[in-house]
């Protein structure tokens, strides 16, 4: 099983009225390094929550810094961090993972952020500035007051940043325009609410940009099942049968009966937990497998069987 780090909350700062910046550190261990675009997983009483790191990976001083927007009461992850966590508290954190890395082959990086989606780009821009690479930021927010890292961006990346504080329709039109006429060597990165991502993704398809040049950050499965149902699983090689309950993932159920399937992201992004299907219908919730691959394979971290399925395990 993956290990966790016991970190201390060193500092909490107000970034906006609803966004707080948390700095974690340890006096006992050197924190593992990370790449620009990486995130950490916080182990909170209500479950695991992922947050992008906002510090510059090349200037990391044994600290992880995240920014969290309060979108729930204290029963949710963000509300808990805002209301129940204070300076000096301890928190369990999984070491950084990076499913949203910068593409080293790019000659120019273009970032599109909306709201709290700015966080991975704060780290990426600091990194690119340090190594002297070309980038630009397009950042949509409801207003300057609600715009996280506004002053920081103005101070450090002013000439490379465009802010979009206007009305929604005008904002969308301008963002679409900013996406147009891009040239070879450009890689485009999107992070923000699903509606924002969908609009820009759709527009990039319209512009016929190949998918390999467009990158999006995901912290949840591509498909969310509102009311997950239990299902039965037969493992044809190890000859085991078990049930996956409605509140459980297939990956967890497999680990419970000591069938170790490797995993990393738990969001249907990385493909590590892929298994072969022998028989049965599956609701695929990942963003990793192609339509052809989904015929005989599934990702156990997010996808679920219907009724009874057989796996080649």
């Amino acid at each position: 099983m993956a290990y966790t780090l016991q970190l201390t909350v060193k500092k909490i700062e107000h970034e906006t009225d609803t966004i707080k910046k948390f700095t974690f550190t340890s006096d006992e261990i050197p924190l593992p390094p990370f790449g620009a675009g990486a995130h950490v997983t916080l182990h909170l009483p209500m479950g695991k929550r992922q947050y992008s790191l906002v510090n510059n990976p090349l200037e990391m001083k044994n600290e992880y810094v995240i920014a969290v927007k309060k979108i729930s009461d204290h029963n949710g992850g963000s509300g808990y961090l805002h209301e129940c966590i204070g300076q000096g508290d301890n928190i369990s954190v999984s070491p950084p993972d990076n499913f949203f890395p910068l593409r080293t082959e790019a000659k120019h990086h273009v970032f599109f952020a909306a709201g709290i989606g700015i966080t991975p780009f704060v780290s990426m821009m600091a990194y690119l500035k340090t190594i002297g690479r070309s980038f630009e930021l397009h950042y949509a927010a409801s207003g300057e007051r609600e715009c996280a890292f506004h002053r920081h961006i103005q101070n450090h990346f002013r000439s490379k940043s465009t802010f979009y504080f206007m009305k929604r329709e005008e904002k969308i039109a301008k963002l679409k325009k900013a996406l147009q006429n891009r040239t070879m060597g450009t890689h485009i990165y999107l992070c923000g609410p699903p509606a924002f991502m969908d609009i820009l993704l759709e527009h990039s398809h319209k512009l016929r940009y190949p998918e390999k040049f467009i990158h999006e950050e995901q912290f949840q499965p591509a498909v969310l099942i509102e009311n997950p149902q239990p299902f039965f699983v037969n493992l044809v090689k190890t000859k085991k049968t078990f049930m996956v309950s409605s509140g459980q993932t297939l990956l967890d159920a497999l680990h419970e009966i000591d069938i170790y399937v490797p995993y990393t992201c738990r969001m249907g992004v990385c493909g590590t937990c892929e298994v072969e299907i022998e028989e049965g219908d599956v609701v695929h919730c990942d963003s990793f497998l192609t339509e052809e691959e989904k015929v005989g394979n599934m990702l156990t971290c997010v996808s679920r069987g219907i009724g009874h399925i057989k796996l080649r395990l």
Partner: protein
Amino acid sequence: MRPILILSEVRFKKDGLKEKELQKENGSSVELKLIDSPVDRKKIEQILKDKPLGTMLILYTGGAARKRIRRAANSAGFSHEDVRIGKMDTGTYCIFCSQCHRINRTASLEKSIICISCGQHLEPSNHYSSFQDAYLGYPIL
């Protein structure tokens, strides 16, 4: 469909034009540029500059030009897989000797050859290396 840019040496003009027609039929927007030999790197850089995101580059050139263009294309932001080599009937094929790494020339991929450097009996395969600009020759033991 991705925009297509075909770079063809004048001596392969016929092949370049054929490719252009084929790509047009497939519905792509195609641009064909004829280039002189030997290839002028600055001219190539000018041609490749600011091409629309997603452009596919197809080359109808000899081996030396191909290497130069690939390098210029990489600098302009084209990845290895954004550059394809068109199929030309040049009359000769290069075969990479898997034993001594010598590049041999042959008129056909169908017949086995003897490596001119080490004497190894080689069977040409369809494994093409864009790095070596040659087909891999398997040793016949």
